[in-house]
Each structure stands twice: as C-alpha cells, then as structure tokens.
C-alpha cells in the first residue's frame, strides 16, 4: 500500500514540486520546480530524503491531511502555523504522524510558500525528468494540477534511511525571510537604463503586485525607462528582472517563459531566490547590487546549512 496522506482540504494552491526540469527549457518548457529550493531541500533532508525528492508546495494556506499510515514529515518555508491533531507542531523539524493523525494549518503567520516533505518522497507523475507540476501542459505532479479534496498522496519509495523525528534546522541556519533585500547582479541591458534609472533600480522600493505567480512577479515602483532598439529574443533564467515597455519590472520565477525580447536590467542571485519565493502581493522589496564573490559566499552559506542536516542524518 503506497497511500500515505489523504487530502481533506487542499489549501489555496498546493502542488507537487521537486527541483524542476532544467533540460526542458530548450523546448520552451519552463524549468519549474520548488520556488524556495532551500526550504524544499531542507524539508527533504529533515526526513532523510535526498534533496531532489518531490514535496508539496503550499501557497498562502496549508492543506488538511490525514495520515493513511504512519510517516515522518517536515514542514519548512513559510509559517502557516501547523498542528497535528489540534496541537501546534514546530516548523523546520521532523514530525512523526501516526496512522489517522491529522495535519492542519491554523493560518499564515509569515511567508508565502510552505513545503511538506514526507520520508520516502511524495510520488507524482514524471514528465521530462521531473515530477514538478506544469499547469500549461497539464503534466507532472498530481495529473498536472493542484491538489483537490479527496486526493490521495502516495509515497514514492520506502524511506532509505532510519527516520527519526525531532531533527531540527536551527534558526540561525535558515534564510532571514524578513529581510526584503534581493541581491542581484547587473544584467545584459543594465546600461540601457539612464543614470537615474540605474540608481533607482538598486535603491528604490518596489511592491509585489497581485499580478504575481509562479511565472513571475510584476513589481510596482518608480518608472524605469530603457533606450535602444528592439532586442532579438534570447533565453531567460529565473531571477532575471525584465523591463517591458511599460516601465514596470517583472521578476522571473520558477515557471518563467524560457525566452523573451524585453531588456533584462539585472538578475537576482540564486541564494536570494528563496527570499523572493516567500514574498506575496503587497510586500515591499529592494534590489541591492552584489559581486560574484558575495553571491558565492551567500550560496555557500545555504549549502553549508543543508549539509549540516545531511551529516546529522547518519548519526
């Protein structure tokens, strides 16, 4: 029996995600995968999985799940106030569910996206090398759609490591999601901004608009204008800050279009994308310019934090 969790309530928008399908971008298919890859990876490591196992990505609210068999779960990323059988449980911690136990979420306290990992990994339809849900193609994850009441989540495989509850990622190793500064590197078309525009990009405050989803965030802020001729379309990357003719930037996220012809004035570095993933409409942010060296240090800090969970898992 592979049935693991029964979905009583799906939450606002819950999908199966892993680390995406990077090879599909040459066919125009978005890379997809967890928006906050740090939280996704940490959740997996806390339950003894490899960091690429599929998890449930819960947006703005959590699902209500009933364990069909005993299992170890971990909830990371946004804090939606998780409870087991009505009692609060910690986030960023391995939590044991007995058969019949109910995992519920009382409400959003911080962040936009929470991740639920289960020992053995969430099972989903594979498509182009990934179980991540792609809505446009209706492939991957749970039949290419978000969770619905009555769905049953299966386990991908037997847990490969002894699963111990109570393992925890210390707070100082987690990203500081309250820090709304997105570190970025000037992009191919930065110099198409005039001097004022360049200064504003890395100093002004922007607001995430409601026109924001897994494809990208439209940002409200000072009008930024670029000059120059129309560009030939080129391949894009998550984190790229596009500037369409309207002057309001778009921050590309996990399900971004793979190519486009708008100027890319900067790109958020990989270690700052988890922070971006936890922003929601109305949140304010700033971009700050970083060097490659600083970007590498930030990346290493996240890798080290994840590695600390990996070494703990063999104890």
């Amino acid at each position, binding site marked *: 029996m592979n049935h693991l969790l029964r979905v009583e309530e799906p939450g606002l928008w819950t999908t199966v995600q892993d680390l995406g399908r990077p090879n599909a971008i*040459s*066919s125009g298919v978005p890379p997809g995968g967890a928006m906050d890859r740090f939280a996704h990876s940490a959740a997996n490591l806390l339950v003894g999985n490899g960091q690429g196992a599929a998890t449930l990505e819960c947006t703005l609210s959590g699902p209500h799940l009933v364990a069909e068999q005993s299992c170890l779960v971990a909830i990371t990323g946004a804090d939606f106030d998780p409870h087991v059988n009505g009692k609060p449980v910690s986030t960023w911690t391995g939590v044991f569910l007995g058969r019949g136990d109910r995992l519920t979420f009382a409400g959003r306290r911080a962040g936009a996206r929470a991740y639920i990992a289960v020992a053995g990994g969430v099972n989903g339809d594979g498509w182009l090398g990934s179980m991540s849900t792609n809505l446009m193609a209706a492939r991957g994850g749970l039949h290419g759609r978000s969770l619905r009441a009555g769905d049953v989540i299966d386990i991908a495989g037997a847990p490969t490591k002894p699963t111990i509850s109570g393992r925890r990622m210390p707070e100082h190793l987690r990203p500081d999601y309250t820090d709304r500064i997105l570190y970025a590197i000037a992009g191919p078309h930065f110099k198409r901004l005039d001097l004022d525009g360049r200064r504003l990009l890395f100093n002004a405050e922007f607001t995430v608009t409601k026109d924001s989803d897994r494809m990208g965030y439209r940002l409200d802020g000072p009008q930024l204008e670029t000059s120059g001729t129309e*560009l030939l*379309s*080129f391949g894009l990357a998550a984190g790229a800050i596009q500037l369409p003719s309207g002057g309001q930037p778009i921050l590309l996220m996990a399900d971004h*279009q793979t*190519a486009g012809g708008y100027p890319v004035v900067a*790109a958020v570095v990989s270690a700052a994308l988890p922070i971006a993933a936890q922003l929601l409409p109305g949140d304010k942010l700033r971009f700050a310019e970083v060097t*490659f060296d600083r970007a590498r240090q930030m990346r290493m800090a996240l890798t080290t934090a994840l590695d600390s969970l990996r070494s703990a898992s063999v104890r």
Partner: protein
Amino acid sequence: MPPLRSTSRPRIHPLGDTALLAELGTRLDTALNTRAIALATALKKRRDVRQTVAGYASVTVHFDPDLITHEALGAAIKRLAAKRPPMHEPGRLHRIPVTYDGPDLEAVGSMLKLPAEKVVEIHSRPIYRVFLVGFVPGWAYLGPLPEELELPRRHVPRTLVPAGSVAIAGRQTGIYPLPTPGGWHLIGRTPVKLFLPDSDPPCLFRAGDRVKFFPTKA
C-alpha cells in the same frame, strides 16, 4: 587580406550567478543563428554547463557555479567562438499545411495594400528557418518573413489565440502551439501539433530546422 569569416568576439553578460548570455550579434541573420546553435551545442558538452539555449544571435548558458566562475566560462566561450564552427547539417524540413482563413488576413492585406491571395502567396513562398524555440512550450520563431509582409504587432493583443493559429509580426512568422494570449496577426491555421507533451523533446520544431508552409482548402 581581411579574414574570410568575421569572428567578432561574443559579448558576455551575467544573468545572475548561475547563467550568462553570450551575445554574438544584434541582427536577425541566418549565419549568426547558425553560429549560436553550433556554440550552444558545443557548450552543452562541458561538464560545468547544465543547459544551453540558442537565441536568435546569442546563447544563454546555465552553469554550475561550484565548478566554474562566470569569468572563466566567459573566456572559454570566447575561445570556442573564435574557432571555425563545424559544418552544420541543414535542419530537418517540415511541410506544414495551412488553411489561410485567419481573422486578420483581410486586415493584413489592406494594411499592406495587397490582395489576400497575394499575402498567402508571399507567406507560403519561402523556406523559413527555426531561429529559436522558446517562450511557451513548442513555440518557434520562424523567419525571415519577406519584407513585403512586415507589420508591427497588433496594438491590442488578443487575450486568447487558438492553438494552431499561423501568425506574422515584424520579420517573423510562427504557429501558436497552445491557446495563449498573443499580439501577432492571425492569417491562417494548421492542424499540425507543435507541442507534443508525450514526446521527448516535446516539440516538433528544433532550432535550425526548416519549415515550408503550403496552402490547403478549408
């Protein structure tokens, strides 16, 4: 004597800390696109490169920053681009039947001061090149469209264009693979499926392929 082949050095721009854009030029040009596709193919063989996407005249390179720095990869790309590109096999030829009855065909004709039949004749005459696959799953930018059919995009994009619509804009033509919003002029439709979700790769056209449209009756 000037060199026979201009091998201007690519311009390397960061796209964050895990990707870069190598720009070979800024013109819509078949030779530049051939170089971009060859460079993308060659770079993909590197262990430190995760994926490459050829653009019209550029290559976007996704790399593993733990294995190579932006600067070192940029230098390697410049060295690689200076070499004579390998002889490239011509891409596969696709023959695509089109019923030229698109909702914009008449308007396109009147904007260009051409009868609709002439628009059809000009559009179905060339063998187009697949310059770039991307934007949405299965979309391919085809061109160059003959100058006689060059028009700016529609002022107001449609909120939903049916899959299979054959469209033109600027010096480009293409087929909408999925129902999506779109700002190009719709001149026809084809039953051929461009996006093949259950094949790998999941699209009919690949960069460098050639496409010939031929008119069919409704």
